[in-house]
């Protein structure tokens, strides 16, 4: 129970998110209407992605300090899940944009920033594959991932604020800013962030375990 309570919590939170997210009363805003429910399924993806990237960077730093491969496993798998969340976030966002803004892709700083972020982490995966030595791969990709994260954070937090964004809550759009985001939405929004992030962590830890088992088996084969 000690080890897996958070998995149960994740299931409970996600069940709550799906049920409540689809059924609760939401404020009716012009243009947004019912699509405001995307808040629980689309916006939370980005929060999950950023949180998981933070975890990945943390393990990257730990790997650089200790040089142990187990930290690298965590770093790469959390990055993988973050990429998964990013892809889901961008595709749900595109569907939503088609219905509210009339186009799958608009020249919106937040959209572009997230696309650039994904490019960055795809490049990270290519870099990993181009290195063959396990230790060198772990070290160099940790360096790049920290470096990329440091460039990514100003991108998503500073740049959109300098130009107007179409996103709700920016530049005179109807949206969930301080006034509109009513307590009903909050009641689902925060648990949803936590739930999705826990799900991502769950996916990552499962993959880390298979990765470690594979390595163990390989070692056994080599030492036979």
């Amino acid at each position: 129970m000690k080890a897996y309570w958070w998995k149960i919590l994740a299931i409970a939170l996600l069940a709550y998110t799906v049920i409540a997210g689809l059924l609760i009363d939401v404020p009716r805003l012009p243009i947004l209407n019912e699509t405001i429910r995307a808040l629980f399924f689309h916006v939370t993806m980005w929060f999950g992605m950023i949180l998981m990237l933070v975890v990945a960077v943390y393990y990257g730093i730990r790997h650089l300090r200790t040089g142990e491969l187990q930290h690298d496993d965590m770093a790469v798998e959390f990055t993988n899940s973050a990429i998964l969340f990013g892809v889901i976030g961008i595709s749900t966002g595109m569907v939503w944009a088609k219905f509210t803004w009339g186009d799958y892709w608009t020249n919106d700083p937040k959209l572009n920033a997230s696309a650039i972020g994904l490019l960055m982490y795809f490049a990270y995966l290519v870099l990993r594959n181009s290195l063959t030595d396990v230790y060198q791969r772990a070290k160099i990709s940790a360096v790049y991932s920290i470096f990329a994260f440091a460039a990514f954070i100003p991108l998503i937090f500073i740049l959109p604020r300098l130009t107007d964004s179409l996103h709700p809550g920016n530049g005179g759009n109807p949206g969930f800013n301080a006034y509109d985001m009513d307590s009903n939405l909050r009641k689902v929004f925060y648990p949803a962030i936590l739930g999705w992030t826990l799900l991502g962590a769950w996916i990552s830890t499962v993959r880390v375990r298979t990765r470690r088992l594979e390595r163990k088996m390989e070692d056994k084969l080599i030492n036979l």
Partner: protein
Amino acid sequence: MRKEIILLIRKEMVLEWRQKYAINGILLYVISAVFITYLSMGVGQGNLSVPVWNALYWIIILFSAVNAVAKSFVQEHQARQLYYYMIASPEAIILSKTIYNTLLTLILAVLGYLVFGVVFGNPVADKPMFILNLLLGAMGFSASLTMVSAIASKAGNNGTLMAILSFPVLIPILLMAIQVSKNAIDGLDREINVEKIVTLLAINAIVTACSYILFPYLWRS
């Protein structure tokens, strides 16, 4: 530390001077790129609108900078790198390379600006602002590109890897520089740019600090 950095920068310059083909090659690269752009845009229709002028200029500078900086960790042999490893601290090496590459990128940018001005006409209203922006852009480009080229050189250094690793990292710097340069071309009030320039400086500082901290780990491996 400061003495070490100055010595290393001088070493880079002497090396560059001895094998002039590298710098001449990259200068020619800028000029031919500008000229190809000129021909592609249709000779005789010379007048570009300001946003197009600006975007083309920065894209050319971006590609030349990537090409110019990409060689900074490969032009020297493995054995010589080992020698530096023994006599110099990694911090001094990355800082000296960054400063040297800033100079190189700045020369490229200014040359590109001159050629662009000759071929396409020079629409820039606020020239000092434009040059200051070039300097900041060159700093940002070289700081991130030097680090990325160090990473790429560890991974067998192919051109594709250098490009895909560096482009996403460069985009924030590029976007800010393009916006400031657009304002400088239009000759807008300088107050508008202050916030953007501060952001650009902050991004530069973040990137430089990161490469300063992270480079020793790369160097050691």
